[in-house]
């Protein structure tokens, strides 16, 4: 009973993640890799890895952006990494933001 309610809650939550555009079909691919039962916890493992890695990258980015002279090539390299991993997990909003950010890096515009 409790398990069924939890599952329903999880499904509703996932549906809202799709509806809001937070995740895209790549996230569904991850779920399918896990769904045949051979690798339980795969999605959680990948998402945790993604969050830890994103955390590290964002820390590095804030350090770089605090410098008096911003090294935009370095900034761009970090944003490239974050774009790659967000595309892999289907974190669509993060991916789009990275793409915009890179465009601004190429314009070397700190205000962006």
């Amino acid at each position, binding site marked *: 009973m409790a398990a069924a309610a939890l599952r329903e809650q999880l499904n509703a939550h996932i549906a809202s993640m799709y509806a809001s555009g937070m995740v895209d*079909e790549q996230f569904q*691919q991850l779920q399918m890799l896990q769904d045949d039962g051979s690798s339980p916890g795969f999605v959680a*493992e*990948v998402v945790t890895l993604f969050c830890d*890695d994103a955390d590290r990258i964002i820390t590095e980015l804030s350090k770089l952006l605090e410098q008096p002279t911003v090294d935009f090539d370095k900034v761009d390299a970090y944003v490239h*990494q974050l774009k790659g991993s967000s595309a892999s*997990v289907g974190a669509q909003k993060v991916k789009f933001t990275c793409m915009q950010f890179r465009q601004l890096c190429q314009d070397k515009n700190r205000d962006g």
Partner: protein
Amino acid sequence: MLEVSLRRALGGVDKVHSKNGVIGNATLGNLLHKKQIIVVDDNIVNLKVAEGALKKYGAEVTCVDSGKKAITLLTPPHSFHACFMDIQMPEMDGFEATRRIRVMERDLNERIECGDVPPECSNIQRWRTPILAMTADVIQATHEECLKSEMDGYVSKPFEGEQLYREVARFFQNHDPVE
């Protein structure tokens, strides 16, 4: 989506396997089953996702995070059947790593031709490990550029089922890595 596209690609060949939800994976599974695959990417998240996708088809996957490590592992003789290589990596990109691997393979092939055969290669006439580029940016990895660095093709990142099947089928059906 992966399963739908695979089913489409395979034209319903796998009716037997479409019970218990495992639709269409059988053929790609057969191609990749027990194959030793090396995946090279400096991004650990990409590495994990690629590993998961290939393992799903029964491949035995080894992950490395740099071109240099790939070169070490792909120095012949080795037991890998194929390699998926990221293009854009710091220090050494995928094209350069592939070029260096091909140089090593040619050296060994010349030795084999001269009859100077290391014991591990006694039943092999010619080494050439299939290497496929992985790229998020199709413009960057044009077919010509892959061929120039002696890669065997490319797949887009993140992995897409139908394309992965097409590329993998191309080299596992047409030429055996151990000829």
